[in-house]
């Protein structure tokens, strides 16, 4: 009778699959190519200041606070940026922690950003920048590892985060246009 191999699960992740993926990245160019992208999002106006983004089979809604005359039915796009930075850094942290056998009990990232100038966004000034000049991200972690290891993992998460590095390095955005 064939012996059944028990799956290794840590942090609700299949460790073997995770290692297999890393191995494939090392040895299979087609996996690298498929994972690198391109990645897509399509954003559709929903009336007012509302928008909906379609990504593969997922959707995310956007709106603005009522102060802007909007309906505050969803988070703003700039809040999604904070969340995306946090979620991406968390993904990296959990990925690396799991590979190193660290069991995570609780993990939370608190993010904060302040606009350079809301007047710039509104088009009534060219001062500063409409965006966040700085984003603060603080990790709260409860895990079975010493502080030094957890700090190393956090540094790795930041250094290797797709979204954090995209934001921090200022990706080139190519605006295109077609009027119908």
């Amino acid at each position, binding site marked *: 009778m064939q012996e059944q191999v028990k799956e290794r699960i840590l942090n609700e992740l299949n460790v073997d699959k995770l290692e297999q993926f890393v191995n494939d990245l090392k040895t299979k160019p087609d996996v690298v190519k498929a994972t690198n992208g391109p990645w897509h999002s399509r954003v559709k106006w929903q009336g007012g200041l509302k928008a909906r983004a379609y990504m593969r089979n997922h959707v995310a809604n956007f709106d603005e606070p009522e102060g802007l005359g909007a309906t505050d039915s969803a988070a703003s796009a700039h809040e999604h940026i904070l969340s995306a930075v946090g979620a991406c850094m968390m993904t990296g942290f959990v990925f690396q922690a799991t590979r190193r056998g660290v069991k995570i009990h*609780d993990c*939370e990232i*608190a993010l*904060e950003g302040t606009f350079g100038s809301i007047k710039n966004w509104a088009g009534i000034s060219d001062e500063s920048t409409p965006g966040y000049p700085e984003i603060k991200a603080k990790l709260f972690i*409860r895990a079975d590892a010493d502080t030094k290891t957890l700090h190393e993992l956090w540094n790795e998460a930041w250094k290797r985060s797709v979204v954090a590095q995209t934001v921090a390095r200022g990706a080139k955005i190519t605006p295109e246009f077609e009027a119908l």
Partner: protein
Amino acid sequence: MALFPVTTVGSWPRPTWLLQALRKRQSGEISFDQFNTLANDAVVEAVKLQEDAGVDIVTDGEQRRDNFYSFVVEKLEGVKLMTLSQLLDFIKDRASFEETLRALDVPSFAMKSPVAVDKIRPKSKLAVDEVDFLKANTRKKIKVPIPGPYMLTRSSWFPGLSDTAYPTLEDLGKDVSKILHDEILALKGAGVDFIQLDEPVLSQVVHGAEGAETFMCAALATRKDPTEELSYALELVNQTLKGISGIKLGVHVCRGNWSRKEDVLLKGNYGPLLPYLTEMNVDQLVLEFATPRAGELKVFKEYADEKEIGLGVVNPRSSEIESPDLIIRRVREATKFFDPSRVYLNPDCGFGTFAERPVNDAQTAFAKLRSISQAAQRLREAPLEIPA
């Protein structure tokens, strides 16, 4: 007992290995009995340090508890320990909680409430097992803190989770009051010398800004106006203590003990609370007075000697060790309003109210208690001494 008995408010910092065991307990990897066996060593150490520091009335350092009220989940049926992150799905105004978390610089998983999700019934007594072990390991008098009925009711009733079993907060309050009443009788029978009801959240009722909820009690989001809340707290406490005598009873109120940042903790004197606290059928008010946030003792002018005072003379959250001289000066101030025979000395609050967020280390806690004991000794030997 000699004048100026020295005691604590309850909690003591847990050793790292105990916190690891607590996490295993909370994730279900070990049983409550297994955890308790491990915790025995931590209790013995906490008691020894209190004794060595000269404490007259010791506690078990709340070593078996996650925090001063959430521990009841192990002892009651119908109660579930939930973190704020789990409760967020049931909270309407999440933005105000996010503001509070940011101001306090804490994660949402650090805040845990024992939420009533069904009719609550005792599985066992809340603290009698703690007392049995404590009594077997000390010859000192012992004090046991238990959550007060208002705190426990407030923290346990959550709209959307509790209202099937308890349509109103008051419905839950009746059961909580009955359980605590029976608990106090059982603790008295087990030989406890001093029972302290923890009602810290009363300060939030009076001094906390509406909408800015504290770390202590997520369910305060549904509170009514301060007068109604305080009247209800008084009613619950006295209902709980009805017919009980022959044991020292106290009530503890502070202004938060989860952060070492003084500016994020509540501020305001006891004046608005005293009309209610002095009507509670307890012997002693265990109050913080070691920081300016608590206001001045002169608020007792109209209430002098109505109760004993458990005087907070050291800040449990600071690294500096208060000198015996400073403590004596604080006691002298208190004796303007209280007869010396009615003054007990203690820190403002526990040293490890929340297991995972102790506000000090054991070494500092020990040094602070020793300083209080030295002050008490000098006060007993030279009752009129007033240090410069």
